């Protein structure tokens, strides 16, 4: 019988990762459909005609897109693990920090990797500030979500796994134990969670992938996540 839940995504994408971890936390049976982003499938274009991006969650023939919206949907539509807090104020805070990661942390870090000279210095300054602010949100907790991973941890998946890989390929050291001991400890703990481990590609493969695309990314600044 065909699965009623399908996830169109790629293992290389931190956005697809968010959706995948959410499904695994809820123990949902789903089919992972790997997209070739250079040749987008008819299915992807049909289910996400406006943005044409992954991840796309298809549940009973209806599609949900935009990774954080997918995670909120998974939290609401399936029983079990609570990805978002139950208190409205805590929920607002979780949404705020997830958005902060998307709007400030990731863009500054990304551009720090793929620019040079004065421009790079500027982005590195922004990235450092953003990482400091993000780290302060851990406030002595094991995870952003408390004792177990939650919405903000999933949003920060890219920080936990991809940032180390990207900076290695780019030849910079932004997120390191000396400057961000708490965030680095969190990253290790996050990557050790079962649902996360099952979603992550082998690190060496991802390093090789980004290394092979390095010149292209440097030129276009556009991510290549497949």
């Amino acid at each position, binding site marked *: 019988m065909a699965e009623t839940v399908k996830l169109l995504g790629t293992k290389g994408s931190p956005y697809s990762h968010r959706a995948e971890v959410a499904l695994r936390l809820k123990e949902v049976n789903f089919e992972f459909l790997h997209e070739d982003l250079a040749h987008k499938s008819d299915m992807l274009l049909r289910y996400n005609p406006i943005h044409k991006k992954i991840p796309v969650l298809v549940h009973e023939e209806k599609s949900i897109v*935009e990774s954080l*919206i997918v995670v*909120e949907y998974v939290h*609401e*539509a399936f029983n079990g693990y609570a990805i978002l807090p139950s208190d409205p*104020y805590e*929920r*607002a805070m979780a*949404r705020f920090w997830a958005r902060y990661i998307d709007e400030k942390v990731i863009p500054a870090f990304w551009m720090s990797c793929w620019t040079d000279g004065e421009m790079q210095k500027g982005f590195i300054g922004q990235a450092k500030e953003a990482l400091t602010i993000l780290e302060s949100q851990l406030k002595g907790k094991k995870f952003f979500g408390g004792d177990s991973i939650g919405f903000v941890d999933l949003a920060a998946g890219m920080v936990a796994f991809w940032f180390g890989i990207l900076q290695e390929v780019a030849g910079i050291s932004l997120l390191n134990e000396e400057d961000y001991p708490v965030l680095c400890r969190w990253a290790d703990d996050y990557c050790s969670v079962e649902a996360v481990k099952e979603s992550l590609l082998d690190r060496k493969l991802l390093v090789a992938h980004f290394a092979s695309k390095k010149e292209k990314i440097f030129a276009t600044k556009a991510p290549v996540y497949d």
Partner: protein
Amino acid sequence: MASEKGVMLLDFWVSPFGQRARIALAEKGVQYEYKEENLTEKSELLLKANPVHKKIPVLIHDGKPVCESLIIVEYIDEVWSDKATLMPSAPYQRAQARFWADFIDKKVYDCGSRLWKLKGEEQQTAKKEMIDILQLLEAQLGDKKYFGGDSFGFVDVAFVPFTSWFYSYETCANFSVEGVAPKIAQWAKRCMERESVAKTLSDPKKVYEFVCFLKKKFGVE
């Protein structure tokens, strides 16, 4: 910002983002204190309530700040849940509402700003983009009374403040919203029949005066 009971909104009169919060509060009948911020000289309260972005709107509820307009609207909807529900109840419809609100966030303000900031080719490109955005939203609205269906909802709240900017967009870029997206124009009129919207939205002519002030400030001619 002591743990004072009550609701306060730090805002700026013409901000469509602040207006989203005001409309949501009005729909719910929530009493609150409105504080107009001088954005060239931000108050200590604003800097303390939103140290990360230093932006309005900020909702302060019993001393606790909530930032980012759509997050504020969802918060208002969840806390004052007994009246005028803005978000649908089913997960799929909720995801759809969030998608369109997010789409409006990512596209309308930015494209709108380019309509008055730019000239020539670049302005024409922005104009085409704005028309595409309006027509996409019109297709989403369809023949429904509101984006939320029969009831005024989350997407309506997210988009309606921008309708008082239509006059400015039309004047700067020389096109007509009614001409390119008549259903959106009609929806805007319907929304203005709601007290929460009519009392919140800025007069389009005043918005245009503000845009002209910004143009002078940024040296756009």
